[in-house]
């Protein structure tokens, strides 16, 4: 396993963290970001941006340490209220790294096909299909057409 891939333990922690950041969306029948597999996206990103390896590892270690301080062996084993408390704590104590995690979590989650489809957006890049749009209703301009010239000579 290379250092830019998460270990099984780290992946378990991260999945729980991501579910805390973007929880399940029951109305859209969507799981949370962790259950949806956004950790794989984060692996891809830290492959491209090696400086993120340290950032994500720092947060994972800090959250697991938070759990151990409460007699729990890892973050994912904490009850949900304690997980939320841990995330609030880490957001306060590690604002820079946590902001970075949020950014990439949001970015990964909203590229997931299931999420896009739930939003009514085609799960694809804009090109090459593009988008159909309604024809222009230029009759809306009738009143403007009647105006005298507006420019100064």
């Amino acid at each position, binding site marked *: 396993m290379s250092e830019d891939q998460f270990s099984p333990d780290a992946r378990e922690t991260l999945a729980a963290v991501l579910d805390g950041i973007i929880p399940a969306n029951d109305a859209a029948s969507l799981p949370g970001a962790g259950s949806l597999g956004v950790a794989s996206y984060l692996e891809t990103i830290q492959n491209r941006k090696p400086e993120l390896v340290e950032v994500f590892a720092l947060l994972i270690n800090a959250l697991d340490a938070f759990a151990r301080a409460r007699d729990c062996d890892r973050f994912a084993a904490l009850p949900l209220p304690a997980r939320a408390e841990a995330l609030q704590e880490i957001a306060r104590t590690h604002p820079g790294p946590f902001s970075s995690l949020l950014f990439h979590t949001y970015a990964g989650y909203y590229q997931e096909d299931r999420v896009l489809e739930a939003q009514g957006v085609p*799960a694809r890049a804009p090109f*090459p299909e593009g988008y159909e749009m309604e024809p222009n209703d*230029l009759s809306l301009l009738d009143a403007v057409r009647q105006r005298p010239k507006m420019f100064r000579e």
Partner: protein
Amino acid sequence: MSEEPVDVLIIGAGASGAAVAWSLTDTRMSIVCLEQGDWMNPADYPSTQKDWELRRFGDFGLSPNGRGRREDYPVNDAESPISISNFNAVGGSTILYAGHFPRFHPSDFKVKSLDGVADDWPIDYQRLEPYYAQNDQMMGVAGLAGDPAYPPKEVPLPPVALGEFGHRLGRGFNELGWHWWPSDSAIATQAHAGRAPCINLGPCLLGCAQGAKGSTDVTYWPSAIRRGVELRTRCRVREITVDENGMANGATYYDADGTERHQKAEIVIVACNGVGTPRLLLNSKSKQFPDGLANRNGLVGKNLMFHPYAMVNGIFEERLDAYKGPMGCCVMSQEFYETDPTRGFLRGYSFEIVRGMGPVGTAVMGLMGEKLPWGEGHHRAFEELFDRSAGMVAICEDLPEAHNCVSLDPELCDSDQVPAPKINYRLSDNSRKMIDHAVARAQEVLAASGAVDTQVEAPLGVAGWHLMGTARMGSDPKTSVVNEWGRSHDVRNLFIVDGSIFVTAAGVNPTCTIQALALYISDTIKKNLSNLFD
């Protein structure tokens, strides 16, 4: 190492460099263009990937300082509330522009006569009109004839799709009795001159993978090259050189390998934009021009004008389909364009409708704007933001002020160790009052269009994409850098064709006027070839 001398050396392959190169091919002169950037590959443009919205935070960002591209040069804009946005490639900043293509108005050339501020241009709308028309054809401009805000003109192609949001805003303007009109846009809405038609991809500001947007790499350059222009990419000019008589005789540049070269030329044309041009001239020091080339009166770099922007987003309860269609140029309003002294400021502004973002853009911008929390409440907040937020910008006319300027940074350099430009700029009281007026009117029309809330950013910090005035045009050598046809007062074989020669900024996007000026200057060169240096 010197290359064979050429008749014409053009520096910069963006909006104006492309137009002047193409036009001068009529003369059959030998023409070389040096461009510090490279050709772009449309297959690599962000809209070909699902993560397209994230690229604006990386290699397709607006600011050259954050892109990390070798082709860019850094800009010290710490002393300006508006940061510089540009792009360096074949096509220049037209690669990233929205394609908004409104012309100046007749009154924009007569600011002093009509409103008692700034200066009149030495040319007028009528002089440029045939070049506007020629340029509209070359760039493939879409729009609609009959706009009462302009003198009559033909528009080659039908307007871009207004979409749900454009129609909605049109109804809002109608309710208030205000002017609005489909924007002139350099976007091929039908197949045009070998370009495929627009398919409403959305991210025009990240390059057009379809090739429908009129960036000069797909408009002027293919034709100019077929007609004999040699375009050398990844060639960064350090300085324009002069002979013992003070005439320009070429330029020293670094090629793609970083090797220093010199290109000799009979005529040198600078087309590097309102920041790049003064940077180059100020860096071109010699015994004859110790303060920089064409700068005997000290005006090079002075009178920098942006367009101060106000951005006002509306939040709507209904979906807007606002992530589809050309991003920034479907509808324009010029209700507040011409001067009305009762408003408390002189000159005026245009409104331009800006569509909304896709899911990723909504999410990350919502995060950065503290509108989209993590944890509980995330989905409700996203639902309220996504495809329910879109708005408009006011593009305000700036007025020339000598203290707003481009100079050379004493420390910052590009990758070839050429000094970087430094920007000193502050908003005038007139601009502030104009922005305040525009924000209030934008909120009115958004409310009339159904917005339940608005968000304001004014001035818009990233909006330094219109760079004007730093080598101004005029008849008097004491108060201007170039004459009425773009020739330096000090150096009679040196021409400037970009936005730096603007006398005033108007309240519209400048690209079509920059290109019309380039075509006009080229035509004047052609007509005066026999006595060009007299």
